[in-house]
């Protein structure tokens, strides 16, 4: 099935950290002379000519789904990458993400949402492609751009919308907000506002999975952790510290770089000495893969291998997904520095349109069915907004709650009750 694919096959190429040649993947960037896709210099040559497109593609860097499909039709074994059910699931998830973020923008401008709101439009393929392959017990650690990660992981749209409105029915009772989504039942552990903060925490979650299996002897504890972060984070010290330790201790983690080429207004090329982030993986002893993040099927293929690798106990993987955010960094960002041609180029590669095209061309679904899904999502969101609107604000008593798990601060005694409630608690030579 994947023979037409140039995505590296992990199983076929046993990873040998000692010899660098074994790390040569077919999907490798050519030498530095060849332009990186996001380069503004390159965009000057980017007329709408598809010939140019093809030439770029043949350099091995990007593929459009239609190319794959054409190649597939020419092979003797026709097989698709997904079944109909999977296809519809992916489509629904991406449409949910897109519609939710659009609704957030609307609500923000109506004043119902406030503070910092970072929207995920355009990057849905990565969230859907990776997270839909996880089990409930696997964890996802994200950044401030976390609404869609939460939705893909299974947090109900109502809970996320209420959290954004700051209501007490939100997933964090209104105490977290847009940037701090947590859900212990769905194993979404943040939501971190600081760049690079989530990476060590994700590494720790992966560590706990390994610890449970090896020290606590919880058999088959093979939970995988996904850490999502951006291109700007890849210049942060904590990123490298964690690549080192994850590879050193062979932790079941996948580092997913959502390289949308811009960190607020700082272009990735202006900020990074070597912009090819996936190359930083092998330097630490793990495979580094680059994939087109606007194509959910390609992302899904890579994700399958990376997650399976982690589950087998072979250690971490660094996956760089090249993607784009259609909106600004946040709703407060005027987004003046990005070239409109670049935006148009990526808008033409909208992952939802691409998947729709794939489903229809391969007779996996029809227009009517997909429109029905669109309508269903719209209704779901209307309901979510209504629910959030009608939910109450947090009561005054909630302000001081949840600072500590053990609120009286005196410790929990051997009988499980708070020590300060035990009349003899000051004994144990603590004579006061």
């Amino acid at each position: 099935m994947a023979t037409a694919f140039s995505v590296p096959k992990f199983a076929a190429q046993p990873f040998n950290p000692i010899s660098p040649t074994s790390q040569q993947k077919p999907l490798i960037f050519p030498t530095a002379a060849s332009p990186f896709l996001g380069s503004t210099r390159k965009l000057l040559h980017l007329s709408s000519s598809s010939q140019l497109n093809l030439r770029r593609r043949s350099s091995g860097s990007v593929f459009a789904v239609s190319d794959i499909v054409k190649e597939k039709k020419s092979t003797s074994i026709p097989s698709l990458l997904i079944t109909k059910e999977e296809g519809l699931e992916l489509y629904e998830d991406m449409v949910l993400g897109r519609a939710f973020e659009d609704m957030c923008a609307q609500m923000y401008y109506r004043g119902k949402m406030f503070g910092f709101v970072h929207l995920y439009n355009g990057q849905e393929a990565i969230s859907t492609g990776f997270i839909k392959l996880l089990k409930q017990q696997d964890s996802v650690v994200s950044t401030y751009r976390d609404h869609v990660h939460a939705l893909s992981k299974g947090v109900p749209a109502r809970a996320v919308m209420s959290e954004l409105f700051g209501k007490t029915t939100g997933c964090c009772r209104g105490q977290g907000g847009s940037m701090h989504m947590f859900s212990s039942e769905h194993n979404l552990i943040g939501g971190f506002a600081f760049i690079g903060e989530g990476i060590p925490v994700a590494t720790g979650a992966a560590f706990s999975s390994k610890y449970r299996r090896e020290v606590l002897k919880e058999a088959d504890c093979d939970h995988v952790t996904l850490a999502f972060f951006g291109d700007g984070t890849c210049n942060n010290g904590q990123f490298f510290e964690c690549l080192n330790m994850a590879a050193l201790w062979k932790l079941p983690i996948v580092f997913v770089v959502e390289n949308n080429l811009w960190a607020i207004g700082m272009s990735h090329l202006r900020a990074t000495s070597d912009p090819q982030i996936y190359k930083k993986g092998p330097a630490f002893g793990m495979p580094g893969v680059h994939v087109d993040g606007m194509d959910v099927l390609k992302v899904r293929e890579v994700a399958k291998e990376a997650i399976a690798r982690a589950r087998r106990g072979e250690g971490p993987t660094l996956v760089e997904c090249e993607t784009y955010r259609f909106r600004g960094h946040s709703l407060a960002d005027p987004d003046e520095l990005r070239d409109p041609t670049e935006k148009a180029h990526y808008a033409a590669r909208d992952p939802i349109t691409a998947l729709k095209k794939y489903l229809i061309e391969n007779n996996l679904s029809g227009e009517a069915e997909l429109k029905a899904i669109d309508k269903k999502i719209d209704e779901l969101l209307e309901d979510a907004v209504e629910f959030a609107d009608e939910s109450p604000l947090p009561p005054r008593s909630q302000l001081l709650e949840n600072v500590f798990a053990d609120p009286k601060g005196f410790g929990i005694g051997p009988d499980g009750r708070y020590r300060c409630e035990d009349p003899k608690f000051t004994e144990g030579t603590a004579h006061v």
Partner: protein
Amino acid sequence: MLGIVRQKMLERSSKKIRPAVSMLRSYSSAAKQMTVREALNSALHEEMSADSKVFLIGEEVGEYQGAYKITKGLLDKYGPDRVLDTPITEAGFTGIAVGAAYYGLKPVVEFMTFNFSMQAIDHIINSAAKSNYMSAGKISVPIVFRGPNGAAAGVGAQHSQCYAAWYAACPGLKVLTPYNSEDARGLLKAAIRDPDPVVFLENELLYGESFPTSDEVLDSSFCLPIGKAKIERKGKHVTIAAYSKMVGYSLQAAEILEKDGIDAEVINLRSIRPLDRSTINDSVRKTNRLVTVEEAFPQHGVGAEICACVVEESFAYLDAPVERIAGADVPMPYAANLERMALPQVGDIVRAAKRACYRSVP
């Protein structure tokens, strides 16, 4: 006249003034002498054997047996899966420990000194302290950050800062400062069992000091409550509130003051957050005078906080302004005489107590 005669008699009968070590050493009792180092080591041993979710992570905690030998013997007993030597990556391994704590493991993170915790302070405050609140109680962080804090001997400006005030300012953290072996054992065991992030500030110079410990302290389920101070010495003329090494200095100062007829009450704070406001206030209402002692920088310090809470709650009971003894407002100098001048000494505490009692300073 009579006072002087009484003083001379007291001098003859009193024991010699000891150098700057524990005063209780000469008491011979059935109590076992235990150094603070042994106390911490035994507490770690017991907690690790009681709960297999407890693990150690830090630099040199394993094969080197601990930079200050606190974690001696733990690698041999519990193996490299539970005693992890890390590369020099404070931010990285602190974050890893916090992530593990999110999932119910109980890491004990050792910082070689708390000065290095500044490289990881983002994780201590943002990922650990605030998480229970941000997730509305869904994710608690049962983690302990421990290590030596404050000045050692001649280690210079970047290795000598006291971080009690910085960490105690942040809601969501518990900050503990043990003084003697009983404190060290009881508070560390309580900290490891506590479901919240605890910053456990030890003191390098106290590691080697030994204190008598009763059998109760040596019991493996011994635990001290977090948030309760201890009155180390009862008195009625002036209250001296201190933490960590300064408790020892305050006790010595109290002995000197006793000869001048000032009966000082010494409070060992033990817990900086939550601060035991009720014990401090009860003591001030009894003695009406307060001296706070710390070796940290004076501005925005623990002494300032104690002064504020006493003024808020017991202003009418104060007979004198609160005297605040702190380290000099300079980065720690290296030269031995300058370092001595930059830190509070027993004489400073004595003079402050006398000022609070409106006695003339000799």
